[in-house]
């Protein structure tokens, strides 16, 4: 299994960041960067990361099961993450999430049939003072209103 040249370069460097013989340390970052490119963590990807980091596939599998950002099934091209944790809850995060469900016609951890959007109700993502917050893929959006969310989604749909 190979990745894009940029990612291959990143991984090659990454493996040298840790003390000698400690390539296992690259497991978590390697998984998340690879997932961004492959869309999901497949058994082949687990084997590949295990091989590159010099561990058993089971050890990688244990890690995949643990971290909430690692997914075994592909997500939408745009992964819409709506925070409803306390600061967002107090400022309309729940309503925003309910609105997103209706707008996209999908629920928690579901993907639209066209594969364009997936939705996830997420835990605190560090935007409490600018709540409610939404993160689409890795882009933060602050003080989000339902209208703004509609626009964000519509724009992404149009751009596609």
């Amino acid at each position, binding site marked *: 299994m190979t990745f894009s040249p940029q990612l291959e370069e990143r991984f090659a460097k990454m493996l040298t960041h840790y003390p000698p013989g400690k390539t296992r340390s690259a497991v978590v970052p390697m998984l998340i960067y690879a997932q961004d490119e492959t869309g999901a963590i497949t058994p082949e990807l687990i084997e590949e990361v295990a091989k590159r980091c010099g561990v058993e596939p089971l050890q990688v599998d244990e890690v995949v099961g643990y*971290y909430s950002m*690692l997914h075994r099934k592909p997500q939408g091209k745009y992964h819409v993450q709506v925070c409803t944790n306390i600061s967002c809850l107090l400022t309309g995060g729940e309503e925003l999430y309910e609105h997103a469900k209706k707008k996209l016609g999908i629920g928690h951890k579901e993907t639209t049939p066209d594969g364009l959007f997936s939705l996830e109700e*997420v835990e605190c*993502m560090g935007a409490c003072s600018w709540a409610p917050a939404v993160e689409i893929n890795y882009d933060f959006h602050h003080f989000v209103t339902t209208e703004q969310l509609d626009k964000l989604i519509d724009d992404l749909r149009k751009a596609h």
Partner: protein
Amino acid sequence: MAKKLFNEPSPLETRILSKRFELDGSETLEVYLANGGFAAFKKAKEMTREQVLEEVKTSALRGRGGAGFPTGLKWSFVPHTSPKPKVIVVNADESEPGTCKDRLLMEYDPHQLIEGILIASLVVDAHVGYIYIRGEYRYLIDKMDRAIAEAYAKGYLGKNIAGTGWDFDLYTHSGAGAYECGEETALLDSLEGKRGVPRMKPPFPAVAGAWALPTLLNNVETYSAVPAIIRDGGKAFADLGVPKAGGTRLVCISGHVNKPGVYELPLGYPMMKAINEIAGGIPGGKKLKAVVPGGSSCPILKADECDINMDYDSLAKIGSMLGSGGMVVLDETTDMVKFALRIMRFYAHESCGWCIPCREGTTWLKKILERFNAGHGRHEDIALLGEVSKNMLGRTFCALGDAAAMPTISIVEKFAEDFEKRLARQLVAV
């Protein structure tokens, strides 16, 4: 014109760590150097290791991640003469609900963080460091990577830093979604490529941390405070705050306030002044109901407990904690059943599952609250919530169990009325 920040600064702030935030290009090395950057490192390099450590001790800086452990003392635990390589780790896994300050420190002043790390490396004799950044902050990993690359390019990282003969390598390391990795030993396991499960202590990370090497582990804000301490002296920093807790800290005010935002305030700042004068008070003229003083793990304060100064001792006196600086303001309309449920949903989701009381307790509490919130509460549930929490408190493997139990105990004790009201409504509905 100054650039637009996430929120308007307040004139009442004491801006030490955040003083460069508004400068155009504040994230660049050029602007950092033009504004006094790396002078502290060079100064520290001229001092003895003991002198630097002494300044940090004098500053009364305490860990900004939430536990508030005296930083100088923590640094002194690292066996700097050990023949093993020493490691510096930066906890940038900011994920305590209510907390969003490390983002700004990395986004607006990454070189301040790098300089802080370098000064720490002199004290513990480390030559390598890792910034463990939560996976959700990918854009910040990219920003830190750019800042690090720039520092390498201009000789502020790598070999013979700024001609001082000091070598140091620094890398970012991405997390992948786990609150538990904010716990320092779980973070170390995650850094080693494992599930983020906390470790048994002892050994403490200072002695055997990452890869069993002596490891200094601090929060982003803690390291970021160090250049100012060395530059202006520990005493100057200490004087900003209160005895045993020096300096300023970034307070993240969120929830029901007119001007939510991250504000840099000296330790011991009056809480009500922060809410009313800095954060602009509660919208709609509503009354204050409660405050989460320092992230969701802290016991909640009732409105009448909020006339208090924000420092460790004052909060400890009333049975709460200063925590991570995440202050969440709740107005009178807030439904505490729903609030308690949302907190517990979080802890149940984030419990790593290693030990029985946390794994089973958080989910049990969540289910009781879900049922209660759905209108199927029983009177005995109110006491049960407290009792189950107390069966977790102080008995779990790491602090996550306490973090889940403490707010719940405080909410059912201080806001039992909200629960009673729900029960009354249920009876009417029947």
